């Protein structure tokens, strides 16, 4: 199978295992490309892509923009902070105006869950979800799984991954759970009771409230950022207390029997969910994740764009 089963990338939930594997093998080729002296291929030279960011982002936006440019696509950027959205324009109007300028593909981040799906059902362009509220962030999950695959091999069966932190507000957690499970890995979530959704076990994940026990179980620990901006009420007494209970430091990491892999989707709150010496240690693959992000996004864009017929 050389084609994705979907027209838009809204979430990992809608992808098949074969889709994910196709994205990975394509990303392997793009990883070679971005490590060449000339990091660019001409595949998408007649495609125009709009990056619509209704919510702040640095890393994801840069990563998407680089991916698009390395595929030779024309890129327009849009951020809500400096736009007519502030003047009261609706999402559909904003996007239709941009599409009237002949855009083929839209990458969108939006604070409302479901925004990407809503858009994909109403416009003619392909949509890639770059994060919609607390729902999904599919490309992050893909690059996380791709980075794990790079370290631990292609077969995810029996691999154990724990996601630590704010599961409740995290789109990264949800997409990661779907992605890893589809690939055959076992997933555990770990965090304070207040930050773990009540019915999460129905997704087939293990739940653990003790960080040490979770780390002893896993091969990979994905430490999520505490998203204070999404928390309208206090979910734990203080950051200091959170760090004491759920922060990963060198002492804890070194006391484990096996050498686990440490991941973080960024941006890191150094000294909160992860200490500086862990973030910079040999077991951390945080910067590999960033590098792989460009290759994986190139693969997603390439595969979706290949379905656009002129």
């Amino acid at each position: 199978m050389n084609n994705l089963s979907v027209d838009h990338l809204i979430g990992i939930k809608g992808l098949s295992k074969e889709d994910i594997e196709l994205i990975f093998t394509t990303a392997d080729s793009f990883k070679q490309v971005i490590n060449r002296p000339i990091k660019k291929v001409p595949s998408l030279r007649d495609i125009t892509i709009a990056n619509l960011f209704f919510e702040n982002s640095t890393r994801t936006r840069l990563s998407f923009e680089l991916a698009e440019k390395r595929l030779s696509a024309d890129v327009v950027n849009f951020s809500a902070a400096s736009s007519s959205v502030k003047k009261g324009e609706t999402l559909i109007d904003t996007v239709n105006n941009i599409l009237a300028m002949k855009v083929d593909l839209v990458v969108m981040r939006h604070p409302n869950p479901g925004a990407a799906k809503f858009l994909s059902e109403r416009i003619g362009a392909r949509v890639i979800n770059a994060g919609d509220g607390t729902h999904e962030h599919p490309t992050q999950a893909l690059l996380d799984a791709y980075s794990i695959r790079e370290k631990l091999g292609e077969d995810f069966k029996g691999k154990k991954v724990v996601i630590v932190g704010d599961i409740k507000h995290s789109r990264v957690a949800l997409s990661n759970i779907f992605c890893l499970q589809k690939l055959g890995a076992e997933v555990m979530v770990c965090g304070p009771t207040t930050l773990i959704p009540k019915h999460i076990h129905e997704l087939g994940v293990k739940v653990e409230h003790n960080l040490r026990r979770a780390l002893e179980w896993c091969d990979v620990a994905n430490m999520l950022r505490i998203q204070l901006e999404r928390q309208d009420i206090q979910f734990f007494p203080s950051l200091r207390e959170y760090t004491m209970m759920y922060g990963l430091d060198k002492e804890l990491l070194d006391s484990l029997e096996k050498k686990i892999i440490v991941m973080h989707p960024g941006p890191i709150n150094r000294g909160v969910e992860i200490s500086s010496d862990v973030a910079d240690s040999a077991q951390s693959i945080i910067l590999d994740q960033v590098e792989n992000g460009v290759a994986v996004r190139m693969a997603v864009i390439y595969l979706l764009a290949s379905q656009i017929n002129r």
Partner: protein
Amino acid sequence: MDKRTILNSKHFEITLNRLASQLKENHQSFENTILIGLQPRGIHVLTRIQRILEADLKQEIKCGQLDITFYRDDFRRREQPIIPSVTNIDFIIENKNVVLIDDVLFSGRTIRAGLDALLAFGRPNRVELLTFIDRRFERHLPIQPDYTGKVVDTLSSQRVSVEWSELEGEDKVVLFTEDK
């Protein structure tokens, strides 16, 4: 489907040896020369010629494998996207003499993409083209080989397939003709 062998294994070997000799004639010590096979099937021509040259000259011949998928001009004009193969060029080709190698030269579009892809690895001094089979009347672009194994006159509805003992069990070239 009519199937006709146009090159048997004996002549296949003679042809490969002749191509290797022609390369030797023009490149002598291969000091500044790199052989690059085009993925997927040009790699087999490359491997055989490399083997002949290395046995003969008793030295290592620098070789690479180039995938041109992302440089094709028919992206989005096909039903299915092509899955890329591995590119394996771990050197810079700046100022080198490059011999591009493929199995069948048909429209010339693959070679055009190959020339484009090659530039991502530096500016070569000179690029030559070696093809095992040249379907000479089917070109869409002004591209001609410098070294040819066998010239075949074909209709565009026909298909030429170079088969290898390591893949298909026997070295031969087969011409397929659709039944009318």
